[in-house]
């Protein structure tokens, strides 16, 4: 993975990662090379403010069209219908302060929103309601996004940036009982946590936390033991976002620097960097792996969204549409990609349709075309 690869991608812009029989994005006339840049499927306008958080909601079991939630700099959360492509509701719960993180809970229609007003709000969205039902005070003014571990049970776990600048706090919800505070050892000095991800291996009952820090390192915490299992320096600049593929035990992170880092977790729960992928421009605000774990997308400060093949990290496409920093990307279970930007627009992309493969149980939605998935296996 060198700068050369990135250049190639820019020239080719839109490369097909596998022999495609049916594509939804490019019109048939564009089969001939050179391929023109792909277009968004559509663009959502109307936030009237930079978009900082995106989250798809619903549609997983194919029972209804998914909704898209967006959080804006002006503190509003918009709920978009992907059927009408219009905002169906607006939630105003952060006193005009930027909404940085959005997450729905698997049970019930509940939404968590994190704002720079130091509040984490829990919303009830069932049956068209949109009321705040609970709220968790935060104590860190950073941009660190929280994380949730919920497996359909009554109780769930929440990781939020803690009071001390290097701390992460773990809460049991919905009782809001503090479980513990994860504080790095005195000599580590990783700086502020920048991004968090709680997860739990299928085989183990122990919840784990991945955290990206200001010094560019990623650490794995054993929450019950309250200790760092492993820490690895991935970047020289703060980690801005990462995503972790728990099945392959592999993660990818982006930072303020000009590279993506891919790291993995071995059986001894030791993190190690597998490689870095050089980019043309510095600054990745967000990284997301698609639910089928075939591709990943990055949100770039250079206004672009980049798409990579997750297994090989081969660059597939550079999506240029936005005219300002892309702050966040999100994938729907049916494969739709959304990108939110400082230009106040949310672009929706339908790139490589998800195949209806039995091995990807997450994909209940029946819209994807049939792509030769064998090439990805």
């Amino acid at each position: 993975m060198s700068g050369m690869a990135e250049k190639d991608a820019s020239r080719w812009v839109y490369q097909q990662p596998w022999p495609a029989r049916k594509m939804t994005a490019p019109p048939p006339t564009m089969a001939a090379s050179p391929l023109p840049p792909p277009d968004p499927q559509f663009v959502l306008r109307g936030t009237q403010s930079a978009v900082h958080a995106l989250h798809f909601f619903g549609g997983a079991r194919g029972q209804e069209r998914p909704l898209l939630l967006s959080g804006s700099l002006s503190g509003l959360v918009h709920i978009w219908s992907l059927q009408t492509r219009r905002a169906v509701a607006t939630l105003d719960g952060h006193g005009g302060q930027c909404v940085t993180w959005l997450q729905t809970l698997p049970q019930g229609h509940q939404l968590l929103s994190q704002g720079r007003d130091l509040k984490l709000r829990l919303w009830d969205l069932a049956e068209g309601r949109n009321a705040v039902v609970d709220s968790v005070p935060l104590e860190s003014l950073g941009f660190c996004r929280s994380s949730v571990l919920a497996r359909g049970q009554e109780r769930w776990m929440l990781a939020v940036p803690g009071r001390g600048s290097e701390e992460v706090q773990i809460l049991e919800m919905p009782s809001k009982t503090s479980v513990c505070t994860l504080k790095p050892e005195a000599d580590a000095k990783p700086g502020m946590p920048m991004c968090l991800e709680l997860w739990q291996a299928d085989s183990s009952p122990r919840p784990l936390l991945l955290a990206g820090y200001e010094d560019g390192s990623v650490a794995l915490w054993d929450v019950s033991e309250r200790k760092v299992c492993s820490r690895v320096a991935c970047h020289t600049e703060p980690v801005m976002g990462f995503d972790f593929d728990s099945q392959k035990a592999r993660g990818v992170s982006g930072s303020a620097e000009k590279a993506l880092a891919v790291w993995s977790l071995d059986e001894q729960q030791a993190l190690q960097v597998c490689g870095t992928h050089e980019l043309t421009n510095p600054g990745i605000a967000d990284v997301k792996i698609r639910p089928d774990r075939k591709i990943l997308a990055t949100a770039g400060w250079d206004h672009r969204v980049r798409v990579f093949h997750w297994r090989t990290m081969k660059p597939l496409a550079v999506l240029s549409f936005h005219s300002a920093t892309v702050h966040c990307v999100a994938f729907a279970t049916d494969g739709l990609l959304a990108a939110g930007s400082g230009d106040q627009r949310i672009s929706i992309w339908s790139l490589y349709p998800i195949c209806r493969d039995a091995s990807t149980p997450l994909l209940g939605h029946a819209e994807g075309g049939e792509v030769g998935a064998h090439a990805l296996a």
Partner: protein
Amino acid sequence: MAVFDTPEEAFGALRPVCVQLTKTQTVENVEHLQAQLQAVSDSALQELQQYVLFPLRFTLKTPGPKRERLIQSVVECLTFVLSSTCVKEQELLQELFSELSACLYSPNSQKPAAVSEELKLAVIRGLSTLMHSAYGDIILAFYEPPILPRLGFAVSLLLDLAEQEKSKQIKIAALQCLQVLLFQCDCQDHPRSLDELEQKQLGDLFASFLPGISTALTRVITGDFKQGHRIVVSSLKLFYKTVSFIMADEQLERISEVQPKPAVEHRVAELMVHREARWVKNTSNKLTILIKKISECVSVHPHWKVRLALIELVEALLLKCSQSLVGSAGPLLKALVGLVNDESPEVQAQCNKVLRRFADQKVVVGNRALADILSENLHSLATSLPRLMNSQDDQGKFSTLSLLLGYLKLLGPRVNFVLHSVAHLQRLSKALIQVLELDVTDIKVVEERRWNSGHLSASPETMAPQPWSPMQRRYFRFFADERLFLLLQQLCQLLGFYGDLYLLVDHFMELYRESVVYRKQAAMILNELVVGAAGLEVENLHENHIKTSPEELREIVTSILEEYTSQENWYLITRIESEEVGEELTMKQSGLQAITSGAHTCQVTSFPAFSQPSPTICSMNSNIWQICIQLEGIGRFAYALGKDFRLLLMSALYPVLEKAGDQTLLISQAATSAMMDICHACGYDSLQHLINQNSDYLVNGISLNLRHLSLHPHTPKVLEVMLWNSDASLLPLVADVVQDVLATLDQFYDKRATSFVGVLHALLAALEEQSEPPKADEHDPGPDVAPPLPVQIQIATHVMERCVHLLSDANLKIRLKVLDVLDLCVVVLQSHKNQLLPLAHRAWPSLVHRLTNDNPLVVLRAFKVLRTLGGKCGDFLRSRFCKDILPKLAGSLVTQAPVSARAGPVYSHTLACKLQLAVLQGLGPLCERLDLGEGDLNKVADACLIYLSAKQPVKLQEAARRVFLHLMKVDPDSTWFLLNELYCPEQLTPPHPSLHPVHLRGITGQGNPYATNVLRLLQELQ
């Protein structure tokens, strides 16, 4: 009236005349009897019935030749008696029947005797009356086998009369009498309901006559149309009543195979018919031939009542004899459905009623045999359809298609059996495609242009109340009759309603894709299929038929829509070259010279100028129609889906709006009416409402298409149309698109400036509309932080920057448009001097150039901008104007004046003259607006004075006068002085002798060329 109420009294009165009649049988005596009878009450006469009948019967039975007149009067008298009494004895009935029948019997031939018409009529009436007077049970006893010979005799007699007689009256009377004899009389006196046994008894008896009756009646029915419709109607009635009685399924199914031994003499037994299966089959075969003859002949009968009777016939036979006459079902159904579109509304209504009844009672669907026959008919019709469409005239096509329509109506959902046969579907579609071929030779279609730039021509007043807008008139190659098109529409709708929609849409989509030859027709058909599937204009005859669900329909419409609006089907060549390129070319060739006053002249005539092989007019015409049909389709889809169509607006509205801005009149009209259909369907009050409410979808399309401008060259036009037709509420939405537009414009200054300038114009017009008056608090900005500029100010600033560049564009049209945009920018930015002034400064050199060195049209437009600018920032402008512009303009006016003064009438058409005129027209208002100082005003005045000369062209004089009118408003005194210096109409006498007399230099007298104009101006001053 009756005088003799009791039998005794009556007997007393009747006895002498009866005796007299018995003795001497004369007409007079019969008349006497009849006269007496008038005075006898019915009850008394009933008692004396036999007594009175005796002399009459005696007269009839007396052997030897009799005078016809006598017989006639006897029969009439007899009839009178019978009409007032009942026949209660079986024997009497039989005897009277024979005696009456015998009156018409000619012993020498089988034919009726050659007697007078009056006698025939009298006998027929007598027979009819006799049968009516038969009392209760004896009538059934009458119809026993032994009567067969006599009844047969009467029947054949009457049939002969009905067939052979000349008199219509006799024919009809004979037919009605037959009806009575055959127990099918409509009148109330008969016992209406017979039980099963009785029915069988009569049926067995009448079966013997069926061949005779049916063949004779068929001859009558299929006879000359001129014989009068009542005879045909009566014959038809008699035919179906008799046939449906004798052949009734209900009766036949109870008849045993073995004939019971009849207890009658051999002679009669021979005549008897046993209606067992074989007989039924044979008879049915023969009847089928007759029925076919009848239906073929009668369905084209000119009189509607006859056709109406045919429907009755079909109904009766199909309802009662669907099994026994199964072979006739084909022709019967064909006759019925063929009348479904009859020209007579009564026939049509009755036909539909019967069809509905059949459907209700599941006559066809519930009956495999009939349904099969119907499908078979449809099969064979589908097979011959292409040939028929090719060979028939309009009328023939009309009846063929009506027939098809009828089959579809009757078959309902079962039509799919035919559609599922590939061969038949192909036949059917081929015929439809063939007959719907358009005539595309009309050149006007290509020529007609619309010229108003952005506003959609369908303003609210054309938002008519009808559910959808009337269709554009189109011409077909293979028919001219408008009704045929309506019929075809109905057909397609019915297909869409009952047929397998997925199958049909797939099929016609394939044809659509297959060849440009089929494309338009296939689209027309698809449009109607969808409307039909929605069930909006279809009368459903089949209650259990399940319509296509709204979701399915939406899915289907979505896929058709996708096809219609795809790159290769939506962007067709509809004119030679892009108009813009064409225009630019013309401009370059003609330079500045050939600017006619109407910038909007059609330039389509310059075809030969282009050397590359151009598409033919026909193919362009065809393309235009295709787009129109597809647009119409979108309107139809909206109509079919109703409010559901809203979900499709995100993909449908953009392409329609794109076409609404098309320069081909027909296309733009079609698009506008499609949009109105959408308004109606989705509940928008107006086109503006529709556009406003869905501007987010439009903006989405616009912004994505701007990324590929070469693929979507019309994108700016869509934005323009959208902006012209919406209000400021969508401004926040378009802000980012405007940035895109400007960025794209920067990229394509050379190629696409025309379309972009149009967008900028529309945009600024929208901004101007909502630009609010300057706010009070604006003078109090924070000490350090300037508040962010409002969006519209930002936009206007960006646009004005671009205008600076475009002001010197080589294309005249662009320069003119840019000046308009600039003008609007100034208005919008008026309250933001910090933005306006630097931009005005940057625009200045170019603006000076426009005023002093450009086409007259541009000069005038530039003056307008200066005026606006002067109103907003006068100080800024005044000095610059006086320094940079005024000297040049004044100079050119002065140098050009002698030329124009000498020139002939042609001069006024030259560019030089137009320039002079433009400068003169522009100067006045500007001077007034800028509030020029005295020195500068004098410069203006000096330059214009010369043009007050009568030697100048009239137009220039007028313009110069107007300049002075403006000057007068600024400084009346000096203007007065100046004018008087030129021409002084009267000597000024000082008000006091001590004052010096004033001598103004103006020369008085006839020779002064300035006299007229100065006088007029001075009058204004007073």
